[in-house]
Each structure stands twice: as C-alpha cells, then as structure tokens.
C-alpha cells in the first residue's frame, strides 16, 4: 500500500511564494535587472506565480522565461526512453541580468546543473540564484538553493510531488509518497 | 549391376501406367516392369533391392531449362556442381542454356560441355546451342553442325531475338532439322532498366517496372511467326496471364506452340520483392497474384506443357548488391520438384500431370529418348516420397550458388532416389 501524506496545502504554498518573493527583492535590493526563469515542467507555474507577486510588489513587469533542460541532461542515454522535449522560451538576452531559476523540488541538484548550463547559452547573467518550493536533500552536486519554501527531509525511496496550477486553487498541494 | 525396385506406385504417363509394380533394371536399361517380379536363385546375391513401399516411382525427371555457367562463370556453377544439384533434386536429365562465356554458339563449346558432363557422370546433360552467334541477335549459328555435335535445341535465352526476320529463319531452319527453338520472350524497349514487375508494388517501391506486355507482345509475335511459317516454337519461362491466354488460343487454333513455366511463377508474386531481397529478382519478374492464378490455370488445362526450373546460379558478387544492380535469377534444381508437388497437394494438377510436365513432355519437346519406363528404355528413374517433410536450407545445396528465395521454407515431398542409366546417383539418408 502506498502511503500518501500532504505536507503543504494550497494556502501554505501561496504563503511560501509570497515570502520568497519578498526575500528575492530584499536580497537583490529591488527588482532591477531581475528575470525569472522556470524550469520545465515543475517550475513553470511556480515561476509564473512568483513573477506575478514580484511584479505587483514592485509595480513593474519582471521578464519571465521558461527553460527545458532535456538537451542538457547527463542521463539522456541512461534508458532507451527519450524524455519528451519541451519548448524553451527565453525571448530576451540574459546578459547583465540577475536570473532567479525556479523549480518545484530540489533533490540531487542535477537538474539545476543542466539548467545553469542551458542558461549560459542564452547570455552572461550577472548572477544566478535558485528558488525552490521544496528542498528534500540528497544532493549529488555542490548546489544549494538561495530561497526555499520548505525543507522537507525525506527518504530516498519516497516521492515528493508538487501539484499546482497557474493560479491558487484548493487542489494545490505538496505530497510525499512512499514509492 | 542389377537393381530391383519393389512395392512402389509406378506412374508413367508415357505408357498410361499408374499402378503398384516392380521394376527390374539390368545393364542400365529397364528389363522388366511387372507385378511381383521373381528373381532367379543365383541372382539374389548380385541384385540390389530397393524397397519402394509408400513412395512413387516415375520416369527420371527432366529439367529442360537450366544454366550451368560453364564455360566462363565457374565460380557460380559448373557442369559437375549443376549435375549434382540435378540428381539431388530428382532430375536425371537437364538441358543447359548457351549463355556461357564463350556463348555456346559453335561445335567446340557444345563438345566441351558434353565432355565435362561425361567426366562429371551425374545427370545426362543436353546442351542447348545459341540461335545467333554470340546470342547477339544478328547472324544465325550453324544449326546443322551444332545438332551433329550434340545440341538438342536452339535458344538465345537470357536475351530475346529482337529481329523478327532472324526469328523467322531460326524457326524455319530449326524445323527443317527437327530441332526445337526455345524463345525468351521480351520486348526490350518496354522492359529495359526495369527490375521488377510493373504494378502496384513497383509503384509503392519506386522501382522501375517491367510490364507484362513486354512478354506478351513477344509471345504473340512468336506465335504469329510459327503460324505463318507452319513451324513450332517453345516459349520459355511463361510468367503472365497474357502469355497464357495467347498460348491457349494458339493451341486451340492448332499452332504448334509449347510452353514452360518455372516454380517461382506459381509460388511467389511481386509482393516477395517488398523486402528488397535480391533473391526475388528474376527475369521475367515475379508477377501479380492474377498472373500467378493464370499460370496455375494454364498448367491445369495443359496450356503450359512443362515445368522447368530456369536454374540461374549467381554468386554474392552479383546478388549481394543494391536491388537495381543485382543480377536476375533464382536457382531451382533442388527445390523445383517439391514446389511443384504443392500444386498436386492443392488439387491444381494430378500427380500424373506433374510427371508429364516434368518428364514426358520435356522429353517429347527436346526429341530425346527419355521420360519413359518402357521396357528397353534407359533406366533413368526418380523415386519420390510425396509425404516427406523437409526445410529448405541453401547451405545444404549441391549447387555452388545460394540465390534461392525459399531458404527456410517448409516443404512437403522430395525425391529420395535418383537412378541414372541404371546407377543409383543419389539416395536420401
């Protein structure tokens, strides 16, 4: 039997995002040169919502990009199944920007490594910061998040998933399941 | 050397025999054909008895259309290797086409082939000589001299005789010498550079097609020539419904036309080409399902007199290449009988008709004293187990070549003993 536990509800997620939005602005001393880039698939909605919060706090439109890291993965030939390739959409140069990468769950760090390699192909940002909703540990690379919604110690065999939409709904949740 | 074949079902269309009989062979001839032949006391030690219960005994099979490739292409086949393939396939006599190098268009080549055949001592080999010098369709060969040297027929097989005047002369001159003319029917301007039948499959594959009419037109021409000159003609490797129709009609009108087809034309269709296996590339090409049905119908109603293998050996050098560049040809000596027995199994022709088409008729058309088990005839005998199941494995073939599209096929019926001139040349283990 799979056991499933809700570790964060919709309200909790939204409060975390609000806090992270303020932290990002505080850390970067405002929204100047700031761009948000969400990592497909899990980071896309989070990035959109984070960007809205930051934009409304600052009263300016913060640019939003979406990045697909499939082509930069280090495990692409690990199985004979190829990941479905998603579209990357960064319609602006990253030169001299402060990029906040957004993902749902930080785990081994390999996705973030791939995402940073991909970002560099779009220009030379002033800095890259990382915002995640959940940090579940078990890092395999020297990578650390700058902004964390919730630290969630987990076992390797457990599965952490974030279910959210483009806007706050009551089905939003973070669950931990035994795989 | 004496042989007695006991307890077999003897089928000999030349004598209208289909009965359980014993056959006694003495001095290379059929000495007796009777019920329960008794043997003298003093003979029991010197006579070999072959138990033929549950198998059939027929006059030695004759393949009137083979290519032995010697002289010139010995890496594909030789007179001995082709002869060995023949006896393994149940054939006691085979005729070999003249498209060797040099072409068999003069006495020395004919004599050479006969000399090789004597050394090989396998099946009887009957050379077919060329109609034209070099088979290039311009000047008639010396028919009289070639006949005298041992040729049994004339053909430019592999190429058509495009010049109608030359064909007319060949028919007239051949007829005057009582020698058959075997015609390879192909209208080159329609077939050139094609590599399979023109039809839906060639359209799908984008391969240049060879239309059925390339054959039909020439069959019609040869029939018209034979009719006009009041001679006879034998049509080689009939593959189309149109040819069958034309030959049937000609026979009905009393024109002396005979015809042969090869097992692949009633076994495979153009669909076999879809995987680009070059072993399915053959001339004429494998045709449509409609043509295949017409061939069967022609065999059934007697329009097609003969089944001949058109055994055409090629090595990997010619076959292991792009389909369009591959040589045409299928080897057939070792599969011909089994593939033809399927026609009997499927109720298309009777066993008697099959033996007619594979022994009696080719002997008659080639005017050779073969194809009979009559007392006094040469003891050329084939023993067939019509129930024996076997799997075609090209690596077991006696032929030097492997270009067979039936590799791996499960077939039923096989020759088990081949006796040539009273000697057991082949016996299945």
């Amino acid at each position, binding site marked *: 039997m799979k056991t499933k536990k809700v570790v964060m509800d919709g309200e909790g997620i939204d409060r975390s995002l609000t806090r992270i939005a303020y932290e990002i602005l505080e850390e970067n001393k405002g929204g100047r040169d700031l761009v948000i880039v969400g990592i497909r698939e899990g980071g896309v909605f989070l990035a959109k919502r984070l960007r809205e919060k930051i934009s409304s706090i600052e009263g300016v439109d913060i640019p939003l990009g979406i990045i697909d890291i499939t*082509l930069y993965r280090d495990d*692409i030939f690990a199985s004979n*199944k*190829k990941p*479905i*390739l998603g579209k990357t959409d960064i319609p602006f140069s990253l030169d001299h920007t402060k990029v906040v990468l957004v993902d749902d769950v930080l785990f081994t760090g390999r996705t973030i490594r791939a995402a940073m390699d991909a970002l560099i192909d779009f220009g030379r940002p002033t800095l890259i910061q990382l915002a995640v909703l959940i940090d579940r540990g078990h890092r395999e690379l020297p990578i650390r998040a700058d902004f964390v919604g919730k630290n969630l110690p987990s076992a390797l065999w457990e599965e952490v998933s974030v279910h959210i939409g483009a806007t706050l709904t009551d089905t939003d949740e973070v669950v931990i399941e035994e795989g | 050397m004496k042989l007695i074949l006991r307890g077999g079902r003897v089928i000999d269309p030349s004598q209208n025999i289909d009965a359980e009989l014993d056959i006694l062979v003495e001095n290379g001839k059929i000495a007796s054909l009777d019920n329960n032949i008794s043997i003298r006391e003093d003979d029991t030690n010197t006579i070999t008895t072959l138990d033929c219960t549950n198998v059939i005994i027929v006059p030695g099979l004759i393949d009137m259309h083979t290519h032995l490739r010697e002289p010139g292409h010995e890496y594909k086949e030789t007179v001995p290797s082709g002869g060995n393939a023949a006896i393994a396939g149940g054939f006691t006599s085979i005729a070999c086409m003249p498209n060797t190098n040099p072409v068999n268009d003069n006495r020395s080549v004919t004599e050479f082939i006969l000399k090789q055949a004597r050394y090989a001592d396998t099946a009887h080999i009957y050379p077919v000589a060329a109609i034209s010098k070099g088979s290039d369709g311009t000047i008639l060969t010396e028919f009289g001299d070639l006949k005298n040297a041992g040729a049994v027929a004339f053909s430019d097989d592999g190429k058509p005789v495009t010049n109608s005047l030359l064909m007319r002369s060949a028919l007239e001159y051949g007829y005057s010498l009582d020698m058959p003319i075997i015609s390879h029917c192909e209208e080159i301007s329609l077939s050139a550079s094609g590599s399979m039948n023109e039809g839906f499959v060639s359209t*799908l594959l984008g391969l240049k097609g060879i239309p059925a009419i390339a054959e039909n037109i020439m069959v019609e021409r040869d029939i018209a020539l034979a009719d006009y000159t009041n001679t006879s003609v034998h049509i080689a490797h009939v593959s189309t419904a149109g040819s069958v129709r034309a030959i049937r009609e000609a026979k009905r009108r009393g024109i002396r036309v005979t015809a042969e087809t090869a097992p692949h034309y009633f076994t495979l269709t153009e669909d076999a080409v879809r995987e680009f296996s070059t072993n399915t590339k053959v001339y004429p090409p494998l045709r449509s399902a409609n043509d295949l049905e017409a061939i069967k119908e022609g065999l059934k109603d007697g329009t097609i007199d003969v089944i001949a293998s058109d055994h055409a050996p090629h090595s990997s050098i010619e076959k*292991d290449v*792009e389909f369009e560049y591959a040589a045409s040809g299928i080897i057939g000596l070792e599969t011909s009988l089994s593939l033809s027995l399927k026609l009997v199994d499927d109720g298309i022709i009777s066993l008697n008709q099959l033996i007619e088409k594979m022994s009696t008729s080719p002997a008659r058309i080639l005017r050779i004293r073969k194809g009979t088990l009559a007392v006094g005839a040469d003891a050329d005998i084939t023993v067939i187990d019509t129930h024996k199941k076997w799997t075609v494995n090209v690596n077991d073939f006696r032929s030097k070549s492997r270009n067979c599209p039936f590799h791996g096929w499960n077939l039923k019926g096989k020759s088990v003993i081949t006796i040539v001139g009273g000697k057991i040349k082949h016996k299945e283990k």
Partner: protein
Amino acid sequence: MKLSKKDVLGMRDLSREEINLILDTAESFLEVSTRTIKKVPTLRGKTIINFFIEASTRTRTSFEIAGKRLSADTVNITATSSSMVKGETLTDTAKTLEAMNPDIIVIRHSAVGAPHMIARLIKQSIINAGDGAHEHPTQALLDMLTIRNEKGKIAGLKVAIVGDIAHSRVARSNIFGLTLMGAQVTVCGPAMMMPRYIEKMGVSVTYNMEEAIKDADIIMMLRIQLERQNENLFPSDREYAQYYCLTHRNIQRAKADVLVMHPGPINRGVEIAPDIADGVQSFILKQVTNGVAVRMALLYLLAGGE
C-alpha cells in the same frame, strides 16, 4: 517516449503516433536554431556518418548542421559510384561503415532499398535520406512540419502534388505521410509521369493542373529533371511549363491562403514561375529551416540508449 524502431527508412513504416512525436520534437528544436549559441550538448561524443552515394548538397548540409547543433561529430562520406562500380558488395560497404563505430548512419543512395538492405545488416540506426525514387522521409516530415505550423493541422487539408510523380521519392513519402494524417491528396502530372495504380495509394489522380489545385490548401511542386526528356517522359520543358507550371494565373484557383512548397532546387520558369517562387505564398525557404529541426529531432530520438 521513444520511436519503436531502430531506423527511419520510410514514411510507410511510421505510425501516426510516431509522426506526431517526431513533429512535436522538431517543433521544440526549431527554437535551438534561433539562439545566438546554436548548439546543445545532447549528442556530445556521438558520431554520425552522412553516407551519400548520390549527389546532394542541401540534404547533406541540413543533416550535417543538425548533427553539429546537437554536438555530434558528423563525418561526410560522399561518392557518386555505386558499390557495384567499386567491385564491393553492399555487405562489404555496410560492414565497413559498421566497423567505424558510428552511432547513426544517414544514407542517401541512388538505388531503391539500399538503406533498407544496409539497415538489416548492421546494428547502427539508419536514417534514409532518399533512396532512388522510393522514399525521402525527412523531406516529407519537414513538409508536414511546415504545413502543421502554418495551418495548425494536417487532417482535412487539400494537398496537390504536381510533377513527375513516378520518379519522385518526395511524392511517395508525402503521399504515405499525408494520407495517414488525414489530408486529401491529389497528384497531377503528364500521363507518362504517373505510375500505375497510384490511386491505390489513396490519392486522386488528374492530368489537369487547374483541376488539381482547385481549392487547394497546399501546392507541392516537384522538380522536373530535364534530362528525363530523353526517356520520352515529356516532349520539352517549354511544353511542360505551358501545362504544369505554377503561375499567378492558375494559382488563383487555389485557396487564397494556399501554401506553395517545393523540395528544391527549383527550376524557375519550368515547374514554378519566379514571382510565385518568391511570392508571399511561397514557403520554400521555411521548408529548409524546418528541415534542420526535423533532422535534429530524428537524430535525438534515434541516438543512443540500449
């Protein structure tokens, strides 16, 4: 997600799902070619051999660029002779290629079925870049990507393919692909250029250009090989152009938003009038751009993985 096959030899072998997968993937790859740094590391360390036994510049270049943008090492082997001329069998050729340990071999061959025969002999993935008059699957896929991007769909569209249907691998591959995806295809050309039983491939046949392009959403013009005059396939380029050239006059019969496509290289003034080739309805250059993305998609989907 994965293509269920080792090789991509023809549109005839692909399912609707596989075609959609390839087109979706290609769609994502379009963006890579618009970047400043047009290279992703995906196929780093993979070797792709472009084995071209028939003259071709655009297809070979397209495959080469596709491979390089994926960071693969691409090697071109070009020859005009067949294996026959060299005295080598096709098996020898195949085994030689295999022994170089490439990951993917892209084959263009003047002989029908050569890529299929090689694919059977060796373990590497083979992509057919055109075999005789048989198939040219990557061309059909890039055509379909172009159509899908411009029209938003393929099913239900009226497509006219005009030219030497009998000798065209582009026509065959497009017929297989487009009919499978639900388009209505009409083929058109002089009777001598129409292969037998073509209608059994699920297309309408006409010898009349205006009838073919009436209400068409897509017009695909095929290149006329002028040397085929010698085979009596058409009397002269002048007469051909009179009846089968796409001009500003006959194009009026097509839908107003018709897409004009051509696999290139074009014979201006023979099968297509210059003002049409350069006109707003022409997507000929877009096809070329999409070709790179389609080939990247195939290389990506076929590479590696056991």
